């Protein structure tokens, strides 16, 4: 194999690893949300233990990226792709942590039924998951236009987060017994909003990897 081909193959493998980590994060969020809606503490526990794997992958991918930079000494666009990958991995690790936070909140509910069905929070989670799938596709295809389009969905998540917060505060005022549940749900809404923010951060890195320009999509 020619050196260039070998380098491209290494880069491809690196991308596949990042993709795998992304999928693990997506699955973590799906599981955390399922555990939340069904108040399934076993599933919530499994999300917390499986986060170890995501954390391990972050280190592995970073090590591989550094080894790639050291041995192949990529320049310009090639170097940018490796750096982009490392940045995205950091974001993914944080997103995995948010899934864990949601799972931990679920455990704090102690299997008490919800006062109201989780409509807006479920919607936020669905949005987050579809954004996440889209951003992973954009990453694999190096499609900066699709990455940029995710901003609209992020705005939707943000406005849902505001709505949930308002609803929870009014709920708390009306019914004091609802206080601790409402507080946890506010946190969860916050985690989901952060999750979506990390997705837009990934979008920014995808755009940087493709064009070399830094953009601020969260502004």
């Amino acid at each position, binding site marked *: 194999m020619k050196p260039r081909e070998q380098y491209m*193959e290494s880069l*491809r*493998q690196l*991308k*596949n690893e990042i*993709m*795998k980590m992304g*999928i*693990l994060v*997506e*699955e973590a969020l*799906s599981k955390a949300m399922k555990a939340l809606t069904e108040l399934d503490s076993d599933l919530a526990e499994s999300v917390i233990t499986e986060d170890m794997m995501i954390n391990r992958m972050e280190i592995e991918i970073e090590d591989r990226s550094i080894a790639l930079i050291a041995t192949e000494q990529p320049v310009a666009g090639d170097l940018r792709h490796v750096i982009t990958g490392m940045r995205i991995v950091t974001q993914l690790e944080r997103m995995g942590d948010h899934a864990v936070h949601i799972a931990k909140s679920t455990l704090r509910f102690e299997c008490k*039924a919800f006062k109201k*069905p989780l*409509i*807006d929070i*479920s*919607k936020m989670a669905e949005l987050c998951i579809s954004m996440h*799938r889209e951003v*992973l596709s954009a990453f*694999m295809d190096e499609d900066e236009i699709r990455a940029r389009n995710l901003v609209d969905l992020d705005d939707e998540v943000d406005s849902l987060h505001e709505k949930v917060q308002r609803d929870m505060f009014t709920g708390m005022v009306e019914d004091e017994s609802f206080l601790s549940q409402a507080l946890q749900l506010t946190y969860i809404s916050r985690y989901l909003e952060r999750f979506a923010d990390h997705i837009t951060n990934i979008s920014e890195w995808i755009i940087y990897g493709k064009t070399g320009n830094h953009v601020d999509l969260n502004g």
Partner: protein
Amino acid sequence: MNKAQLRRYIGYFIIIAISVTIISINAATLFRRETYNRTISILDRNNLVARNLLTRGDFDSLDEYFNSIAVEDVRITIIRSDGVVVADSQTDIGQLDNHADRPEILSALNGVPGRSKRYSNSLGEELLYVALPIIDIGEKSYVIRSSMSVADIDKALGDVLGRIIFTGIVTFLALSILSYLSERRFIAPLADIQKAAEAFSGGNLDHYLSVPGPEDIKVVADALNEMAGTLKSRLADITKGKNELDAVISSMMEAVVVLDMSLNIRHLNLSALNIIGSDITNVLGKALIEIFRSSDLQILAEKTLKSQIPIEKIINLNTDRNLILQVHGTCILPTDDKSTGNAVVLVMNDITQTQMLENMRRDFVANVSHELKTPITNVKGYLETLAEGVMNDPETTERFLAVSIRNADRLNAILDDLLSLSRLEQHDGEGLEFENHALDGIAGNAFQSCAPKAAEKNITLRLEGQKDLTARLNMLLIEQALTNLIDNAVKYSDKDAVVTVCISKNGEMAEISVRDDGIGIPDKDRPRIFERFYRVDKARSRELGGTGLGLAIVKHIIIVHRGSIRVDSELGKGSTFTLSIPLN
């Protein structure tokens, strides 16, 4: 003429030129030596004649001889041992200087025949000299020397050399033309062979190579033709085998995905494409993880590749359809050294349906026992307490009996529902009376049954649409279906809400929809709400007093009417159940 040919020709020319030159030079040298040798021997003979005449003292004959040889351009000189010229056949001896320092004379004076070729001052031209060793005549010693002009010899040599060069050039040209012709005779068939080989490698094995040329090249052409024939039949065999295999794989119900060493998709069949829901061009060569997006599947493939042991696992694929797949991973080892390495074959069996039925069955058994057991346990518990002596307290007795009756009623309701369900299933519409009825009348009856419950929550029941529409139906069953739907709508609506029944006509079908603004039904539960005893929110619906069979009954009523039922729902916004039954 291409570059290779040109180079070859230049090589030929150089070889021919070198050969011709070497032969010519050799011939010229040989000829020159022979000519000189002959001249020297002529001069030697002249010297001997002159010596004979001199020793005999026959000076008259010598003089005559001198005159005779002058015609032949030969000059004879007789030199005394001290170098003084005593006689010369051409020049007056008085003009000649001492010859003792001449190289040929010096050598003759030492008793050795002398030879020399040099410029003669006396004659003013280049001469060849030959001298006999010194001889004694009387008391004096003499050296006899003959000489001849080289110009004549050189002229003759020049003539011959010219002829040799001419012959060389002619030979060179002739050989060049011959080699060119013979080369062309070999090259032309080679070009044909090249074209044929190109055609073969391009896949055109029907190309026939015919070469008119030399016998040995014809043999090569025949071998090539034979090779093409063999290749063609072998290729046909392989193609046939491959087509069969492809047909088998693509007609398989199981999804088959072949991966290379880096777990990129190398091949997959139609069923696999159906699972992904994508086009083959978007999939080939891409990574497994990118296409299937399942970490479980990726890990299974990685394990299969590493351990080279077949692995089987049930995997939930989180696509839009939430498939459950039984995946079987096998590692193919390389068949020979040249192949690119191991590959993984994943065979996936879609067991979503089976798994769903299994879940339904399990849930049904669990639910039915729970539903039946709860009221009986209650009744039994209260009656036992009464039997143990609480009966003496009339107030408690009354309360306990009331609870027991309520539970018995509940049990009764469940059994009634189960019975009507089984009747509906058994008859499958046969033996039921179907008549034309106005739908608004039926809706009105249903409203009446639900009015008390609606009034409790101050819910308005509203009828809309084409009120005079009639359809052929069993009035009691449709009324029951509508009652169940409206009852549900009232149950899951907030206070002061509105439940709307709308009658409309859609082609050959009458449509009756029941719309509420209640809590709605989550997407994942929607396909299952018509199952017996299935409850979206278990605690809540039991609290609201359902039997868990209402929607199952509605579904079966619609089935016996050969109609269909549809649910549109959004969480928090409300649900709409639409019944469609044929007008006739």
